């Protein structure tokens, strides 16, 4: 794609990528900003090679994930993608830095009791801000199926919160 389309692409994706990185670096704002900048500058350099047939969100998300993996691997060799997806998410520090209310903390705790796939879906949709269409492209499922699943996950979350 031509590089002069990149500012529009940037505006559309910057918040999501930042949020994705922010959660995974334990709420470290400065680090999240540095990583976001690196990711978008890398994407800018490669933008003319970007194939429009591939989802733009999936493309930038892959760049962000690989970049994060490289950065974390410098600190801790042998880190895996799966580890990034799960363990960093489980870290409590971002929640404390973000000064969450009691209700919000309760909700996040309840999310941890959901099946991993459901929790990942709610995280992508509500916390990171992706659309069902974009998540469907990434996961290889239909947006309709994901809507149904997200609805069920929210019902389950509500049930967990009531039980507490």
């Amino acid at each position: 794609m031509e590089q002069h389309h990149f500012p529009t692409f940037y505006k559309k994706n910057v918040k999501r990528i930042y949020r994705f990185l922010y959660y995974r670096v334990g709420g470290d704002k400065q680090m999240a900003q540095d990583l976001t900048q690196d990711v978008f500058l890398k994407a800018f350099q490669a933008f003319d090679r970007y194939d429009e047939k591939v989802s733009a969100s999936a493309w930038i998300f892959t760049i962000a994930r690989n970049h994060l993996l490289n950065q974390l691997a410098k600190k801790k060799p042998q880190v895996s993608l799966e580890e990034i997806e799960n363990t960093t998410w489980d870290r409590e520090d971002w929640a404390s830095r973000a000064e969450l209310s009691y209700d919000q903390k309760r909700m996040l705790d309840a999310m941890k009791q959901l099946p991993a796939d459901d929790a990942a879906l709610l995280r992508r949709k509500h916390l990171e801000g992706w659309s069902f269409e974009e998540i469907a492209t990434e996961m290889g499922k239909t947006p309709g199926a994901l809507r149904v699943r997200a609805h069920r996950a929210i019902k389950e979350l509500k049930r967990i919160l009531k039980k507490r």
Partner: protein
Amino acid sequence: MFDWIVGKKLDQIGRLADPDRAFVVALGTRIKSELPHRFSPHWKVLAGSLTGISCLLVGTGSYAYASDNVLPGSPLYSIREGLEQAETTIAPTPAIRAAVTVRHMQRRIHEQEVMNVKKIPANERQMQRFADAMEVTIDETSRLDDTEKQGLDTETARLEEKFAKAVRVSKDQEPTTKAKERLETILDRQTTRLQERVKKLEEARREHFKTLLDRRSQAATGTSEDHSDSKEREQSRD
């Protein structure tokens, strides 16, 4: 609690992790600054239009100035006149202005010749302007010193002949007697003016030589023979 409230609460938590606006703007600006320079489509259209208009104006101006097809009475002829007027105005010295005027007169005569060949009748106004142009050319050339003339006077004399010939041909081509008479009047007027100028020139020349002789006689304190010799010499030269 409704399901959608849970969704909204999760969205609220998500917004807590939004980047600072200043950071988003700064990074956006940095990315824009690294973009290769590119004109917007509006600017491209504007630049294209301006180039087109300029080309059209320059092209029309050049055509009007140089083409043999642009003759008195043609819509583009006024552009030629304007450009020639500008050329005369910006001439820095009288010698250059005279040279420019002579060049313009050559063109006027050429135009008249073309009109004669094409059998295009010249109206009275055009013929009057043609005659005026000849007069201006003679004036400009006669004002110059001998050192400045550099063949311009010879060229003017040649142009005068050509002018007379062109007017004669034009007159002969006129279909009606009335038109012929009008042209004849212009020619007569022109001839009268020329005769008057020749007279004035002769008088001026005579005055000049008289002054010259007086000076010499005053300077020659010597013999009257010398004086008479020199007088004779001056007269014979005159």
